[in-house]
């Protein structure tokens, strides 16, 4: 392709891409300006004062290379979230700490026992966000609609099984159906109540059960529920983007050490200052401990595996996804894409993936010698299966070795996942 042709092509780039880019540039520039210190320029001001007073007032110059953010103390002296694996146990009622909601009992305990001079790395998020409006609906509405669609799908799935009986109406519990089925009245009444007269009258008309319509509506209901799932996810992302800057402003104006990094708000603070912080609507925020990896990791600094390995036993391998697509891949290339996507999704929270292998016979650790594992845990065979848990750093994953393992006849399934839950709003 010629350079002129390339540039001609670029001249026809979608205008909305250009607009988006311009707006992003402006936003980045504004953020950089906000983080610069306030200094006075040396110059005519000093000259004027020299005329009036005998001493020269020297003030620091505006430094172009002033670092925009500095941690309040050595990074190793900060309390970070070191949890791996389990999300906070929502069954435990965590008390307020000095009027603050905290997302886990372990954070509560850390705050209680911390020395006054210790710094915490916190995420501060808005507690209730069901009122956030996305595409004209509140999150609460989206979730209710989603729930209604799933409920409808479930009801229609049940109706497919029972509709041919229910079409006989009261005969079902009086004399029984021509096919010989008879129910107790209590059961019949319970099922009618479950479906509701309105739903039933749509699909059972004049003693005829419209199965085709039920199948169509059921299929539509699940498709709509899936769309609402996507909308819920998108709303979450939009909410997250919207609150981060606003919340950062609130806390930085209180004189706290704050930074937005990798689209998350970090606040570095000692417990006494946190306890005495006078902020409006304190109860509207939730505190959680930030992960050091969230802070240190540069987005994109992760490996990307190319589509060079072929011959995986694809029917055995499930890869965790966060985009509502199937966990099973249809092709080797698709599997490698899913692994790459998993690494991207987890990059801020962990530096490794987990692999769980189920096998019909116990596997020795030797089987995994080429997998470059950080940890290997194997079990003996229990009843019909043995298990092996591996954790592998992103950059050390040996896809050839994984392929060989997948093709072993004793290997039944392979699950590839992250060792953390999908990050929540609080990070």
């Amino acid at each position, binding site marked *: *392709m*010629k*350079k*002129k*042709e*390339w*540039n*001609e*092509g*670029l*001249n*026809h*780039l*979608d*205008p909305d*891409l*250009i*607009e*988006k*880019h*311009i*707006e*992003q*540039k402006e936003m*980045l*520039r504004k953020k*950089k300006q906000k983080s610069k210190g306030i200094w006075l320029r040396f110059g005519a001001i000093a000259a*004027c004062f020299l005329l*009036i007073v005998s001493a020269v007032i020297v003030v620091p110059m505006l430094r172009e290379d002033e670092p*925009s953010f500095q941690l309040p103390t050595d990074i190793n002296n900060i309390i970070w979230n070191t949890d791996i694996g389990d999300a906070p146990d929502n069954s435990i009622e965590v008390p307020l700490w000095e009027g603050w909601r905290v997302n886990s009992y372990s954070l509560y305990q850390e705050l209680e026992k911390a020395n006054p001079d210790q710094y915490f790395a916190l995420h501060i998020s808005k507690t209730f966000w069901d009122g956030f409006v996305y595409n004209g609906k509140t999150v609460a509405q989206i979730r209710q609609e989603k729930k209604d669609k799933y409920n409808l799908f479930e009801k229609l799935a049940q109706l497919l099984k029972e509709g041919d009986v229910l079409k006989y109406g009261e005969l079902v519990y009086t004399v029984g159906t021509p096919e010989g089925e008879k129910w107790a009245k209590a059961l019949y009444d319970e099922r009618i109540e479950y479906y509701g007269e309105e739903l039933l009258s749509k699909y059972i008309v004049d003693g005829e059960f419209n199965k085709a319509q039920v199948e169509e509506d059921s299929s539509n209901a699940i498709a709509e529920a899936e769309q609402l799932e996507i909308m819920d996810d998108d709303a979450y992302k939009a909410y997250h983007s919207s609150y981060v800057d606003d919340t950062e402003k609130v806390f930085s104006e209180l004189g706290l050490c704050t930074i937005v990094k990798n689209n998350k708000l970090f606040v570095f603070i000692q417990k006494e200052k946190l306890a005495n912080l006078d902020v409006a609507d304190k109860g509207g925020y939730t505190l959680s401990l930030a992960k050091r990896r969230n802070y240190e990791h*540069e*987005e*994109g*600094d992760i490996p*990307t595996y190319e589509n060079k390995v072929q011959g995986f036993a694809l029917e055995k391998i499930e890869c965790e996804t966060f985009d509502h697509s199937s966990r099973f891949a249809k092709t080797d290339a698709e599997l490698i894409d899913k692994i790459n996507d998993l690494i*991207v999704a987890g990059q801020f929270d962990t530096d490794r993936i987990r692999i769980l292998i189920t096998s019909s016979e116990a596997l020795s650790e030797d089987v995994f010698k080429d997998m470059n594992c950080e940890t290997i845990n194997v079990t003996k065979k229990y009843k019909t299966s043995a298990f092996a848990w591996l954790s592998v750093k992103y950059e050390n994953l040996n896809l050839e070795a994984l392929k060989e393992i997948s093709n072993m006849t004793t290997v039944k399934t392979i699950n590839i996942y992250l060792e953390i839950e999908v990050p929540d709003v609080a990070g």
Partner: protein
Amino acid sequence: MELQNKQTVRIPMDDDKIVELYWERNEKAIEETDFKYKKYLFSIAYNVVHDRLDCEECLNDTYLGAWNAIPPTKPSVLKAFLTTITRRIAIKRYHSNLKQSVIPSEMTVSLSELEDFVAGDGDVDSEFDAERLGRVISDFVRSLFERRQFIFMSRYYLADPIDTIASDLSLSRSMVNKELAAIRSALKEKLESEGYSI
């Protein structure tokens, strides 16, 4: 002490008001555009042509282009609209300057990064479909992660220097270069899959 010389600060006009001036055919529109966007548009042009006089001419042509286009156009984001015009004019100037072997600009450097698949210096083929390529590149850009989108647009649309991109995103140069390498590799695949000869 009271300062003797009070400087009045001129505040740039809102984009909506500037566009209105164009629609009213009020020549103040050009003046306001120049006051607000001269520096920015100059930097766009300079990345491409690397010559101050040429840049001034590009800017003048941009204002003329905007005057002729508005109306009937009513741009929703004036800055983006002007960027497009300036870039097109600068690119034309760039290609004509190439024949005269003037000092290579950032555009030259950014194009050289693509020489794996964007190499020839000749004129556009008569059958070349620029709009189609524009759509293919747009699809490609949309398929990138946000940060890579930003880097692609900065480097290959606006020909921003690597240092500027690194500074905008608070990244190291090496990280930006790494991202660019990944973008180029994916772009090459995309162009090949769309039937462009590489």
